């Protein structure tokens, strides 16, 4: 990504450099050539419509090239590849909490392997933050109450700065960290130490502890919709709309179940606002993703280890 941004940046430097040079040369030349001299009067010129049209059209066309190029780069920056490794990010005043899909947790440090696409699914516990890695030329605000995503692919091992770029209070400038990019072998070694098991397994536990299983059963008899095979698919709502079951939708269903109720179900689910932490919501989402490949009504007992290879979006990295 850095290479795409830098290429456009260099193009812009050249274009604006030429424009600046043109204007400055004209300014300096006119200022010197037409400085006041005794006996020489200024020559009055009304203006010139052809000239006005020329110097409106040419910059406009150049601007459109910059716009289009900028938009192309932006869409690349904003569209994570489907098979990215997923990392959940929870921001709070004033630290970054990161959790790998495999269960490793980190604070203010993110270890990633070189050459793999990494997708960050981010939310904030309090105010707006912004996840900024200057070396990768990416930045995305992290908001409370919803998920935003950004992605990158590191191409060189090393340690890179991570900054919070949206002012967030007293220790805003202390909300910094490191992105540690490792060779795949080293990364494997790092991964194998200190994991508490996959995030989806944690999610399955939370799913049971909170009693979700009593309604969201894996057969058709539940009072709530069966959640197998739901993630990433369109969902028919009671009010006639259709939404895609993405991270933001699942999150909203947990925290504000009445907002987008699934067609054919009663509004009986209580809100879990205040009862679950951001990390637990992330784990639940990871779990619901992990059962996305299962067919509804199959009734098969799913466990993370079984499901992992079958995930539709390939969030598992092994």
């Amino acid at each position: 990504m850095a290479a795409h941004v830098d290429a456009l940046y260099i193009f812009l430097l050249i274009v604006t450099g030429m424009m600046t040079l043109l204007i400055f040369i004209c300014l300096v030349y006119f200022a010197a050539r037409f400085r006041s001299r005794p006996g020489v009067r200024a020559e009055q010129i009304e203006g010139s419509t052809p000239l006005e049209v020329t110097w409106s059209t040419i910059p406009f066309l150049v601007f459109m090239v910059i716009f289009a190029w900028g938009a192309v780069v932006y869409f690349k920056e904003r569209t994570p590849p489907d098979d990215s490794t997923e990392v959940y990010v929870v921001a709070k005043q004033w630290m970054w909490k990161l959790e790998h899909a495999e269960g490793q947790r980190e604070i203010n440090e993110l270890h990633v392997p070189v050459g793999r696409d990494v997708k960050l699914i981010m939310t904030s516990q309090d105010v707006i933050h912004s996840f900024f890695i200057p070396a990768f030329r990416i930045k995305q605000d992290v908001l409370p109450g919803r998920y935003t995503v950004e992605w990158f692919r590191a191409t060189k091992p090393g340690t890179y700065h991570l900054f919070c770029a949206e002012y967030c209070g007293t220790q805003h400038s202390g909300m910094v960290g490191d992105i540690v990019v490792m060779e795949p072998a080293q990364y494997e070694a790092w991964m194998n130490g200190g994991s508490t098991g996959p995030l989806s397994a944690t999610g399955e536990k939370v799913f049971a502890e909170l009693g979700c299983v009593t309604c969201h059963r894996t057969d058709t008899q539940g009072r709530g919709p069966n959640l197998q095979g739901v993630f990433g698919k369109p969902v028919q709502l009671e009010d006639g709309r259709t939404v895609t079951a993405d991270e933001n939708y699942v999150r909203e269903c947990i925290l504000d179940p009445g907002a987008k109720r699934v067609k054919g179900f009663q509004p009986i689910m209580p809100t879990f606002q205040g009862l679950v932490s951001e990390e637990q919501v992330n784990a639940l989402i990871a779990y619901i993703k992990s059962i996305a490949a299962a067919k509804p009504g199959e009734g098969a007992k799913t466990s993370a280890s079984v499901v992992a290879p079958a995930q539709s979006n390939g969030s598992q990295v092994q």
Partner: protein
Amino acid sequence: MPQPERENYLNKHYGVWSWLLTTDHKRIALLYLISITFFFFIGGFFALLIRLELLTPAGDLVQADTYNKLFTMHGMVMVFFFLIPSIPAVLGNFLVPMMIGAKDLAFPRINLLSWYLYIIGGVMMLHCMLTGGVDTGWTFYAPFATNFTNTKIVEAALAIFVAGFSSILTGLNFVVTIHRMRAPGMTWSRLPLFIWAHYATSIIQLLGTPVIAVTIVLVACERALHLGIFDPKLGGDPLLFQHLFWFYSHPAVYIMILPAMGVVTEIIACFSRKRIFGYSFVAFSSIAIAVFGFLVWAHHMFVAGMSVYAALVFSLLSYAVAVPSAIKVFNWTATLYKGSIHYDAPMLYAFGFLGLFTIGGLTGLFLAALGINVHVTDTYFVVAHFHYIMVGGAVMGYLGGMHFWWPKISGKLYPEGWARLAALIVFIGFNLTFFPQFLLGYMGMPRRYYDYSHMPEFQILNVLSTAGATVLGVGYLLPMIYFLWSMRYGKPAPDNPWNAAGLEWKTPSPPPTFNFDEEPVVTWEAYNYEQLDAPSKEEVPVAR
């Protein structure tokens, strides 16, 4: 040359009340001049402390909270209490009636009211600063400002709310004055471009400022009553705040820069002794900026979590607003062609404006490019960019205008040598301060960082920037000193020291209370330098 005893707006009445209860637009302009200068130096003092703190990577001069308050108060004071009123309320107030041949603004009492509102807002702001201040950044983003910080948000918000009405009333007054009070013969196409710029500015003030007022009230309500407008925990949307905030605060940039463009247009015409190249294009580009300026606000939010398609539209529109600005720069440059250029201090400021505004404008192209914006937004690149526009552009224009019209305002000449020196110092100091910040920004230094000990590689450029800031500070102090000096010791100014076109030069310096002894009748086009410089003096049109 005016007789020292001649009655004018300055010596007609004496005493504090003759000033505090005046309805004379020229005296109100001076009241504004004193008040905004006061706030300028307060804001400047904060800036100096910020720069000193950033001299070293560690946070060692002030506490983190103090630093956060410093940049917040710097922004709020400079934006709402200096830049927005600067040119319109001082030079505009003084010159708009005179340039169109009117005795005063349409609503002299409302004009005085607007100054009082400004002062009430200003006192509230000072009180807020002295009792603890605010630490949210001048943008007070929700939910930090509405639900998290413990500082004096409501007080600062109300101060800005009150000052906002001062701005609305000034805009209203200008619009009505320009429509209704032009002298006979002063048609729209004969208006000085300074007036066109102020007309466009006034429209933004009238239509935009109420939106920030509403936003501020919502922030206050959210804080006091927890309504859940912006707080996601209560079903609110923090992005809504950003949309509302920038809907005003982006056009507000044009409130600052359009009047400066008007000033520079007058100066360039006068000191190259020429009609402005492409008068109607320059006039209508001001209106185009005012209109398009309202449609680009979300380019401050490309990484805020907005839809990519919305970002696309706002990026496109941002390039559209760049075109009229480019047209202006080309026309100013073309005006110099075949002119007879004089290098008096106002012209040096105008040259400075052209250079800095060009750089500021062109770096705007980087920020409007979506792919690059993601990297440089919220870094020092943005800080450098908007200072090039708002300080390099607007303040250079303001200082140029102050020098150009000072003989008219005060009736005295300032020392030309010192003025040229100050212009040079400001230009050098400005570039030394802010150019390194472009580099810092692309290297990735985020703005509003109190402590950068995690990335000490940024120190060299920060040291340069701080060094530049001290030079810039000297450059800003000098004009204040010699303007004050000239009021007592300066040579009396002739009525038209620059032999400039424009009705304001056809009345004595300083002007009488009602500006003109007889209502002028205009029979010539704006910028009639051909006639002014004609060998035979009989051809010069006279108003009296």
